[in-house]
């Protein structure tokens, strides 16, 4: 396994972990308010659909599309995704955008689900009382919310697995890295029996954004016919360049402060 393969595995693992933490919040809210059986069944159903998508799209993509075209298109997709993650992460790191708050999202989801008509009583987390969720009653809303949450958060993971995996010829490795992240987050979520609000999501997004952007730049270049010095080692150089860029941007944005000046005291204007 060379350095670029390791970076690839870390990028997929990190991206998957971030999305799975967000999905866990929704699944936990659905489980607590609508019943764990439906929440877990919805999660497993979404995971099965996502796995099928990776196999149905990833394998033909890697085999049938000419590699140069694949790298330019997929590299461009990675670049768009990586830059979007970096943009949001820099704005959050510099205080211009609120941090992703899993506790607030959990509270909102619980309030919304609790207000809908229930067929079942709310139940405690499976890890806390050892309750037998498999024999609990089913709830269509709980299933739908868990399925939709895992599916939507998982779609970005699927895109990253397919783009990174197909372009590098490591689809199996990318899939395993994503699966490992899902398992790790699920186990932690089961043990603590609540949403994971302590995970440093913004730091993870900064790191993953740098890696996705670097891979995007590298593969668009490779597909277009650019001869990168050092070949795969250039990915590490790009990671370093973009990491420094993002650090400087975050510091600079923090120093710039908010875009609008606060209203003067006693001026009668409100911002």
């Amino acid at each position, binding site marked *: 396994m060379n350095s670029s393969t390791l970076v690839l595995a870390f990028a997929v693992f990190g991206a998957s972990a971030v999305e799975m933490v967000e999905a866990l919040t929704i699944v936990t809210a659905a489980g607590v308010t609508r019943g764990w059986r439906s929440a877990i069944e919805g999660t497993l159903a979404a995971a099965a659909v996502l796995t099928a998508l990776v196999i149905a799209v990833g394998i033909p993509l890697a085999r049938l599309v000419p590699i140069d075209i694949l790298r330019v298109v997929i590299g461009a997709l990675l670049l768009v995704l990586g*830059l*979007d993650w970096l*943009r949001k992460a820099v*704005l959050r790191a510099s205080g*211009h955008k609120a941090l992703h708050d899993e506790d607030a999202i959990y509270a909102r989801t619980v309030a919304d689900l609790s207000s809908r008509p229930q067929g079942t009583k709310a139940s405690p987390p499976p890890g806390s009382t050892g309750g037998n969720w498999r024999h609990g009653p089913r709830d269509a809303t709980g299933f739908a919310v868990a399925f939709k949450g895992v599916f939507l958060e998982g779609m970005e993971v699927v895109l990253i697995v397919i783009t990174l995996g197909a372009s590098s010829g490591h689809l199996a490795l990318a899939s395993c890295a994503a699966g490992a992240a899902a398992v790790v987050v699920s186990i932690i979520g089961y043990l603590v029996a609540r949403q994971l609000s302590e995970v440093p999501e913004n730091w993870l997004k900064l790191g993953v954004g740098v890696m996705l952007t670097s891979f995007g730049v590298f593969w668009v270049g490779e597909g277009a016919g650019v001869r990168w010095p050092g070949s795969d080692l250039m990915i590490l150089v790009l990671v370093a360049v*973009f990491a420094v860029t993002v650090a400087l*941007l975050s510091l600079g944005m923090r120093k710039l402060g908010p*875009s609008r000046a606060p209203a003067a005291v006693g001026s009668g204007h409100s911002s």
Partner: protein
Amino acid sequence: MTAVVRALEAFAKFWRDFLIGDAPELFVGTLVFVGAALAFRHRGGVVLVVLPLIVIAFLAGSVLRGRAKS
């Protein structure tokens, strides 16, 4: 038919949100980047400087635009 149309609309919306979202300048920047990569692919030294600079420029511009909107 309605279910198929709804599924297609959802699919189109997913890609529009993914590619453009609330930062269309990043999509434009990516297109500029791809064009530059194709145009300069045989000019080794130029490529090493110009390509990363294009990415940095569009990222910085997008962050500044995000600050202005916040």
